[in-house]
């Protein structure tokens, strides 16, 4: 049964009429054409689909669209302010912390959440927090460097 669902995606109100059982990932991609959020497993096991829901990182493949009524969703498309990249995006770009880049949006959003919680994370905190995000290009070393660089960029930004 279709239902009308109101939510806010990247600061914009969206009214969606759809089956509330569909995943947030699917609706973002297929209905809102926000294809930056990627599909990797649909089981909550890879992090490619990570988005922020009310600021908290979530696997959008594990969230039903019916569960996010009135929530604020941030996807990778909503991070930059106009031409200015979010410091975490900038840091990933500076470090070239990607090979194919398919895991990158999920990595960046999870790192944004990490740095909100721990503005000066230890290496252990970074690894613990990020461990649910898989990079099959195995670019972990550069991703860790990017997160460290982002810490600095965020400070400079302030």
């Amino acid at each position, binding site marked *: 049964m279709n239902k009308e669902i109101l939510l806010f995606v990247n600061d914009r109100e969206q009214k969606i009429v759809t089956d509330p059982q569909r995943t947030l990932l699917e609706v973002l991609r297929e209905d809102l054409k926000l*294809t930056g959020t*990627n599909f990797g*497993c649909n089981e909550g096991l890879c992090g490619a689909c990570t988005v922020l829901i009310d600021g908290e990182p979530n696997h959008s493949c594990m969230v039903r669209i019916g569960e996010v009524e009135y929530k604020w969703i941030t996807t990778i498309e909503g991070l930059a302010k106009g031409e200015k990249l979010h410091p975490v995006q900038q840091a990933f770009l500076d470090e070239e912390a990607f*090979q194919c880049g398919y895991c990158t949006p999920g990595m960046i959003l999870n790192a944004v959440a990490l740095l909100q919680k721990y503005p000066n994370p230890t290496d252990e905190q970074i690894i613990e927090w990020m*461990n649910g995000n898989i990079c*099959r290009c195995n670019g972990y070393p550069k991703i860790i460097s990017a997160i460290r660089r982002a810490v600095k960029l965020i400070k400079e930004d302030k």
Partner: protein
Amino acid sequence: MSAKIKSININEIIELENEESVFKPDWEVQIDRRTFVQLLGAGILVVVTGDFAEGQMRRGGGQAATVAARLQISQDGVITVMTGKVDEGQGCRTQLLQAAAEELRVSPNQVRMILADTSLVPDDGMTAGSRTTPNNVPPVRQAAATARDILTQIAAEQWKVDAKNLQVQNGIVTNTATKESLTYGELTKIKNLSESFKQTVSSNVTLTAVSNWKVLGSSVPKPTGRDIVTGSHIYPSDIMRPNMLYGKVLRPPSYGATLKSVDLSKVKEMKDVIVVQEGQFVGVAAPTTFLASQAIDAIAKTASWNTVSHPSSKEIYQYLRDNARSGQRGNARSRTSNAFSQANKVLSETYYTAYIQHTPMEPRAAVAEWNNGSLTAWAGIDYPQRIQGDLARAFNISNERVRVIVPDMGGGFGGKHTGQAAEEAARLAKAAGRPVSIRWTRADEFTWAYFRPAAVIDCRAGLDENGSIMAWEFTNINSGNAALNTPYRIPNPVEQYVSSDSPLSQGPYRCLAATANNFARECFIDELAAAAGADPLEFRLKHLDNQRIKTVLDTAAKHFDWETKRKKNTRETGFGLACGTEKGSVVAVCVEVGVNVKNGTIEVKRVCEAFECGPIQNPGNLLAQVQGCIIMGLGGALREEIKFENGKILNASFSNYYVPKFKDVPEIDVHLVNNTEIASAGAGETPIIAVAPAISNAIFAAAGFRVRSMPMIPAMIEHAKKISVIT
């Protein structure tokens, strides 16, 4: 049809791994200039009207017949380079861009790349086997250098001087005497390039010497970087077409199962769902993936299947041995039997590697669209021209009616050589009369893609009284002959690959058989060193003539401080090393490993790798490739293993198939040796081959027993169980 997956013939892989690609599509580009300009999109005005049909290639070998087929220059000086290579993260887009920029003497941001679109690009062969660097960089450089000479000549004619007196820098031709100058863009206005660019690419044209490289040799960033971090990069999974539907295909419950009956009536009544059955192929298309999944699940409930028996992963090694084709073992054996009978010591061991999955982050995906009997497919695959031919055959149309486009995709590692998803999408799109997107699930990818082959490798060697290897037999069953030959100095080695009857569909993987063969050989060499009472490093150096391998061994050993470390082995900590060569590059690895024999656990603490692939073309990307290989190599070395029984994959999920994660990353220390004396070799694979044997050798150094199978953790756990029974 869904039950029958196209398996890649192992012989194809072998040829591919060894030398030239075996695929020879006879294909011509058929497109006129207007289409070309449109396809390039706004902002690029292509001046060259060159007859693109002249762009036809020699057998996918990467040599464009004409300059026009390889590159175009617009009036504003923008250079567009075309290549049939696909970028799956390994970085060929950047590397080929650098190659063109270097020879045209322009800044990298003046060059745009068009990759992997059968309507636009030359056939550059399959993206595989680390072939881009040796096979595709040179022709791109030659085309760019030829174009530069043509442009210089136009300026010379304009100024009525000898081209020798002109200099080219930053895309500007300058007359050194008069200081007059003209940009490439201006030169295209002086003379229409359409005629000049019909010129054949000269393979004798002088290329820039390594010592003068400005763009090659530097860490030029990926041109797609900004799109990647903003989420606007378009992967095959992201392609959307007007009116597009999402498809799902009915998968058999087990390998070899065939469909007996299925009831489609209920699903046919579902609103907005299109159902297709063509023989064994059953699929649906619907406006959302959710609806398509509901439909296919409903169909699956009504399906009944004929199943066949299928061996289990538990008995796989015996199965492969039992089904091995005999090869020339008899003849080969007699040549060495004499040497073995004279040996002081003879060792004989068998090594095993399991089937593993590539699990690229992006599963197979494709969108297919039909227009007036012509098919366009966007797909995540490794060889657009080959899939073009496959699709043409599947739908009984000519190649000219099929266009295949490969957007830069989310990983491959050798796993995306087949075009099933494109064919499924095309079948559904044809029936639906609308474009259809197919995106495999992770379980599909784990089950219906092909695997890196399992291997059984028998090694036998004899030592003389000086502790030198005097006899050598090496047999790989099932996984291929890459890196089969020993780099060590051994008289009359007997080395062979024997095919077998693989129960799983198997195909290329990052350094496929080389990883298995090098694992067996490097572990066995370590066993021989121990038998000879020699230090593993000295034993290797003593048997090596290959100076390049010696150099990387020395480099890794020095940075790892092997001299000190080798004396510090304890029951809990071991130090091991290994080396190897494959695909023209050389590698050496030293590792420090924590071992807990009682629990059967291994912790790789530090990896120090030295790697050399000739002159380095992009140090940043090379470092990423080496780091990626090391960590990916840890997966296959320690945990990755496909388990199957009764034709079903038992661990078709990231929950029980363990790929490396952040927590598994050891301290990594990479040393890139820049050898400018030789031609550059590919580098995306070989850095993986010495990781596993170094770990196994380190386990021995600590715990005193050998782990002769990949992955090693299951073997460690077996061992732990055994000793717990004993104690």
